């Protein structure tokens, strides 16, 4: 078993950097079109657009054995890349894996096909808590694949006690020069609002200058804004506190037992990566079959075993060993979880506004 089982951040950052050049102009819109004349049945193929290292080792092969459908998987590094690629029309993907906020965004933009729940009996395996989220009421367009939570990864020997508040990242010089923040503007603004006692959503306009001032004041104490490779910075001793996803830190903890993870007491942001069928998918029947297969208990456990992210699949979780099920980092305690929220998609203007706030912070 290699150590790259997570949605490995270094690989993701590599992909991000490579993708950056290609994203401005995407010429991929000349992909496959559904072939007419194949009445009823579809050709035994499927194009799956997924995150890197985000599938079980044998999952695709097992699916082929079970259904005869050959899955061709391509990879994206960020939701923005996924969105940009499908923005000009679906280049031939059948199943995609956007995060919660982008499910709303793409559904609103008419980029997603409604799911036919009758073709996906394995919905029964999903924990009911995930079946009616605000970002996709009634799970019309999406089914949950994994979820993840932002929190503070830290080096135990360098930090006094447990840094269980966003204060240490956003509003304190106690760990000056030893802090790294995620360079996602919306996440930063939202978590800062959470620290100030507000929800991560519907942040009032008069709170934004306050957040901006706080982050500008905090900036001299921040070592770096990272592209989701915070665990590497923590492992290499570059910083002692880092804003990261629980799954990424759980991986780092396997390599270094001086590292731990805490979800701050103010609560945090939940993300959920979801299975969707994009509009214009050439093979919707195969897509439904594939989604149903991924939600199967055995197949789900196989995936979780490899990627070690929290699963919303109750039946799959039941099949997992105890060191996964009872892992406090992968599944934080319920009282903390109850304070966590999904970040809602609140329109393009908000996204632009948050971006400008962080640009100002970084230019200050």
């Amino acid at each position: 078993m290699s150590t790259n089982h997570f949605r490995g951040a270094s690989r993701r950052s590599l992909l991000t950097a490579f993708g950056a050049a290609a994203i401005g102009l995407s010429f991929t819109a000349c992909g496959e079109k559904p072939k007419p004349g194949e009445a009823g049945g579809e050709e035994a193929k499927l194009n799956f657009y997924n995150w890197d290292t985000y599938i079980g080792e044998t999952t695709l092969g097992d699916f082929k054995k079970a259904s005869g459908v050959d899955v061709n998987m391509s990879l994206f590094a960020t939701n923005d890349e996924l969105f940009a690629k499908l923005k000009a029309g679906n280049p031939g993907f059948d199943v995609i894996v956007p995060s919660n906020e982008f499910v709303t965004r793409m559904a609103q933009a008419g980029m997603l096909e409604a799911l036919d729940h009758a073709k996906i009996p394995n919905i029964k395996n999903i924990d009911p808590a995930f079946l009616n989220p605000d970002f996709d009421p009634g799970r019309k367009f999406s089914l949950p694949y994994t979820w993840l939570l932002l929190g503070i990864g830290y080096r135990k020997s360098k930090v006094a006690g447990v840094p269980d508040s966003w204060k240490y990242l956003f509003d304190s010089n106690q760990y000056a020069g030893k802090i790294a923040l995620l360079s996602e503007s919306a996440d930063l603004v939202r978590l800062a609002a959470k620290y100030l006692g507000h929800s991560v959503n519907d942040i009032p306009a008069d709170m934004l200058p306050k957040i901006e001032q706080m982050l500008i004041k905090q900036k001299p104490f921040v070592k770096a804004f990272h592209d989701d490779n915070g665990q590497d910075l923590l492992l290499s001793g570059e910083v002692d506190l880092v804003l990261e996803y629980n799954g990424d830190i759980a991986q780092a903890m396997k390599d270094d037992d001086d590292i731990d993870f805490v979800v701050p007491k103010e609560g945090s942001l939940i993300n959920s990566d979801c299975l969707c069928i994009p509009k214009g998918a050439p093979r919707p029947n195969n897509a439904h079959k594939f989604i149903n297969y991924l939600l199967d208990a055995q197949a789900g456990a196989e995936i979780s075993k490899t990627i070690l992210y929290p699963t919303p699949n109750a039946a799959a979780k039941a099949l997992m060993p105890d060191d996964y099920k009872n892992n406090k980092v992968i599944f934080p305690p319920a009282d903390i979880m109850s304070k966590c929220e999904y970040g809602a998609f609140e329109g393009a203007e908000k996204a632009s506004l948050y971006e400008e706030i962080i640009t100002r912070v970084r230019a200050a």
Partner: protein
Amino acid sequence: MEQSWKKAKAVFAAALGPPLVWLVVFFVAPMAIVWAYSFGHNVGLTEISFTGTIANYARALEPLYLKIFVKSAWVAALTTALCLVIGFPVALAITFASQKAKTWLLLLVMLPFWTNLLIRTYALIAVLRTEGYVNQTFEWFWNLGAKVAPLGAYQPLELLHNNFAVILGLVYVHLPFMVLPLYSALDRLDKSLLEASLDLGAGHLRTLFRIVVPLALPGIASGILITFIPALGAYLTPDLLGGPDSQMIANVIERQFKRANDWPFGAALSFLLMYLTFIAIAVQALLSRGKKKEGVG
């Protein structure tokens, strides 16, 4: 076998056609589309309507973004200056090396081009970080010294995630861009002029500044230009090596196209950057034309 191209129009067209088509299809047309974006605005989440608005440019000229432009230009200028100061002696040394050594030295200068920029930047991270090779080496010497004199514990140098790291990374990456044009200018230099200068009583330094530098001026100018332009648009280096306040204009542009999903504004910023580049090229062209006229007149 010299023949006017007019007599072989078919051959000429066949030779010119493919690159021309390539240029139009893969450069001019996409650029025109992005240029058109810069005069549009977002309608909904996926549509951009071309309204001819200049609002994007107005926003790009706000003090916030102007400040970032100025900072990027300053970083690029500093990089270029350092490249010139470091690159000139290197180019000079290569010029005066033996024919065999010359080949090897030029190969050494070009070798980094064969490695992906991203790999080289990650390598620099490994060198510079708190527990990187530089700090480890210093710590080793420090501990050696600590056996003789009471020095206390070693405090690692802060080399990564700051503006110093960005400049270092940019100089490292762009040095070949400076050395190669300098070398080609210096190599063509008539060595007898240097001998004459030395014979007539000028010292080495004086010969360098009165003879070599003026004659190499076109090479220096093109070296400055092709170092400054990519450095101005640097994206990867500030992103990976920089600290919280190291953002350059290309990083802002990238985030407009991706996270902010504001392609029109990102396009306006990109084209402002490109206009600046055109101005720099025009200035260089004017200067070199001025020089030529001076030389002739």
